[in-house]
């Protein structure tokens, strides 16, 4: 898996934005991750504890906001969720599906402290 390079990106985004906002410390980072992106939260957390040391974001809590993979059936208009793998519509068995969400993969926000 590629969680190390992902985690490095998260650190870069958080510290760049934190510094720009004048933070003395970043305490929390909220990530939005769709269920279709093959990312393991624990593994990001593991690398985070290693690489955030000595940075503005040292000790910051990571919050993983997961977005389910919702799909819309073109045949019967039923909406349902995929759990990782492709499944036919549970109502009608059709495979004509539109994927509505689940690809999200971004840093949403950070909580910072400033010395006044």
């Amino acid at each position: 898996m590629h969680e190390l390079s992902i985690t490095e990106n998260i650190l870069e985004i958080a510290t760049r934005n934190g510094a720009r906002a004048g933070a003395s410390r970043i305490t929390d980072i909220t990530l939005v991750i769709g269920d279709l992106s093959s990312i393991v939260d624990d593994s990001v957390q593991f690398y985070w504890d290693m690489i955030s040391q000595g940075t503005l974001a040292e000790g910051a809590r990571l919050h993983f906001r997961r977005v389910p993979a919702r799909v819309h059936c073109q045949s019967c208009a039923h909406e349902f969720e995929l759990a990782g793998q492709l499944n036919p519509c549970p109502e009608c068995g059709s495979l004509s599906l539109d994927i509505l969400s689940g690809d999200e993969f971004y840093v949403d926000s950070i909580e910072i402290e400033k010395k006044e």
Partner: protein
Amino acid sequence: MSASRVTIVERIMDANDQVAELNRRRLDEAGVFGINLMASPGAGKTSTILKTIQMLQPDIKIGVVEGDTAPVTIDADKVLAAGMPAVQINTGGDCHLDAPMLDQGLSQLPLNELDLMIVENVGNLICPAAFKLGTHANVLIASIPEGDDKPYKYPNIYRGLDVLIINKIDLLPYIDFRMDYFRQGVEALNPGLITFEVSAKTGEGFEAWTQWLRGKVKKA
């Protein structure tokens, strides 16, 4: 001391995608059509590249970037032996190539002499799908022995494809592979995907695949 919340909303892949755009520009400026060839280990990436070189030479000059997780030059050596320039990129254990790695690879190829550049990505169906390289087409090789359920189990890689090659069709008589079931899954994920059924062993289907490539390669 005061605490506050800063809204960011920045895509985590942005840094990679920006380098991918530079790669694309570089290929475009050199007039080179670039392909990102993905597959599981052993699906026939190198075999397909070699057969493609054989069918397109001498009119189309092809450079190859070989991505491997370790410093093994077996695949790159095969391309060199076929008379085309090849660069080996060692990802140092990483499960995929990313755009900065391709940038390095491109620097070592004589781009101005090439018509087509093929990246042999690391054998893996999950990670390469997440990293844009800046190539013009994402191509996946699925091979018959892997089984007909792969689009269902690895939906993401199929969604980002421009071309699908189904390789090792010479093995169809020996393996329980429901082509209908397989292609139904692909159709659900990527409607109308351009698909070639081939055998890198017998050469079957390569006429159509290389014809498609010829159409994409701009001859100066």
